[in-house]
């Protein structure tokens, strides 16, 4: 395998972008990425998008996006793994470069969610659950994560306030990020007094419905050196794993096995342990998700995610910053773009270009992107060389 570097990143602003279409968003992120990379070369494109079909009545992005990017004839493929589609698209691009099949591969994530009503957006997202045995019974994603939240609270004593503190921390970070959909600080009260969605989760425990796109350009480390990229940001490990699609079929619904396995695989490939990682972008689609993910990654012991968050471990100035970008909660969650946007943030930090949210001496990062209630997961380890 050839070593792979990230030489370009580009993102649209995240939000309710009424004037921009699915194709506009994709092209904007790609052009910013190429401008950042300082090259126009693209040999192949991978596209992460959960469901252009349900959100926009548009599939076949593998033709649409190269076409509107002015790259007619360039090979492209869409990669789908629900909310992990973006991270899986980067993994597909990595494999293409590492294998020698292509030298310059653009991994692009996009989702245009506000072209349908909130009801239809929730219904589209619910297709990432077990359609016949979960969604059929009237449960949606806030509900599935609420099942985990109650179990976590009852088993470990995690409190309602600790869940809220995840959102408070991520909004504090997101307020420093120009790409954020909701760049405002909030308090524990904001969360606790927001509308009930699925007990014990409230509106401010949930990531929003978002339009947005993000792109990264991958090439070999040798090519990146020829282009004089400094610092050189490399992908040193990737791990992916799956779990049952239905939450009820897991032996223990508090064990995110796909996340544990993906992390072990990514860290092994990078020759590292979690102690070697300085910060992480994780999939906080709901506040409870961030707590369970930092436990599954081994950053804290099982059951300690809540107390650790309350103690400031995961804050921007904490010992293990989580979601310096503001996470899905504040930055926004255009599902197919999320995994790519996490990598854009990690690269920004590793290049020391994160401004007020810069993590000091950032050299090693982990990004964790998952689909559904943890039915799929992809993890990347990034290093500045």
């Amino acid at each position, binding site marked *: 395998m050839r070593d792979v570097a990230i030489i370009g990143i580009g993102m649209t602003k995240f939000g309710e972008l009424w004037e921009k279409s699915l194709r506009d968003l994709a092209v904007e992120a790609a052009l910013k990425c190429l401008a950042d990379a300082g090259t126009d070369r693209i040999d192949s494109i991978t596209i992460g998008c959960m469901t252009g079909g349900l959100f926009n009545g548009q599939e076949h992005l593998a033709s649409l996006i190269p076409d509107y990017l002015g790259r007619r004839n360039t090979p492209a493929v869409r990669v789908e793994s629900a909310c992990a589609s973006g991270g899986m698209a980067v993994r597909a691009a990595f494999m293409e470069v590492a294998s020698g099949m292509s030298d310059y591969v653009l991994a692009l994530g996009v989702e245009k969610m506000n072209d349908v009503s909130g*009801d*239809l957006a*929730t*219904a589209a997202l*619910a297709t990432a659950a077990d359609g*016949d*045995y*979960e*969604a*059929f*019974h*009237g*449960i*949606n994603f*806030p*509900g599935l994560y*609420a*099942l*985990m939240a*109650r*179990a976590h609270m*009852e088993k470990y004593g995690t409190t309602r306030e600790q869940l809220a503190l995840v959102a408070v921390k991520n909004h504090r970070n997101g307020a420093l990020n120009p790409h954020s959909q909701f760049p405002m600080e909030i308090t524990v009260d904001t969360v606790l007094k927001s*509308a*009930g*969605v*699925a*007990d*014990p*989760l409230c*509106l401010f425990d949930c990531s929003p419905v978002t339009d947005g796109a993000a792109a990264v350009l991958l090439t070999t480390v040798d090519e990146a050196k020829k282009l004089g990229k400094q610092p050189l940001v490399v992908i040193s490990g990737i791990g992916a794993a799956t779990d*049952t699609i*239905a*939450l*009820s*079929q897991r032996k223990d*619904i508090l064990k995110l096995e796909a996340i544990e396995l993906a992390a072990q695989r990514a860290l092994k490939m990078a020759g590292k342990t979690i102690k070697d990682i300085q910060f992480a972008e994780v999939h906080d689609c709901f506040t409870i998700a961030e707590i369970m993910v930092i436990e599954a990654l081994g950053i804290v012991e099982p059951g300690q995610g809540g107390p650790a968050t309350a103690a400031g471990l995961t804050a921007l100035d904490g010992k293990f910053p989580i979601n310096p970008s503001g996470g899905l909660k504040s930055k926004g969650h255009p599902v197919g773009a999320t995994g790519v946007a996490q990598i854009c943030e990690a690269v920004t930090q590793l290049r020391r270009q994160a401004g007020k949210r810069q993590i000091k001496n950032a050299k090693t990062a982990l990004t964790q992107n998952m689909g559904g209630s943890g039915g799929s997961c992809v993890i990347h380890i990034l290093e500045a060389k």
Partner: protein
Amino acid sequence: MEVAKHWRETPERYRLEAGKCSKCGKISFPGRLICPECGYREFVIHKLSGKGKLDTFTIIRTAPSGFEDLAPYAVGIVELEDGIKILGQITDCDPETLKTGDKLVAKFRRINEDGKTGMIYYAYKFVPDVGI
């Protein structure tokens, strides 16, 4: 949802029929072609008792489309006597009084309907098990 899509699931939804692996005895609900425990491919039909206790639950306050009229309503994961867990709504009780560990039993209930096809979807919901 289409008629055939619901009709295919009627053994599970109407009669709580699961598949029991002929080799290792693992019960799968819904049935599968391959045992997730041992990989064996032969099963016998196993009718679930429908009795169990509440493992975890939520009260849905912002309902998905088609379920708005029901809100607030409870959905939970129930650990059945058969040793497996299944997800369903919990009804015939005040959702605010539910506790994990509550004894529940599956009953045949109307879940939803499709105005376009005229279909009414029936399946199991859980109700408090008062021994009747």
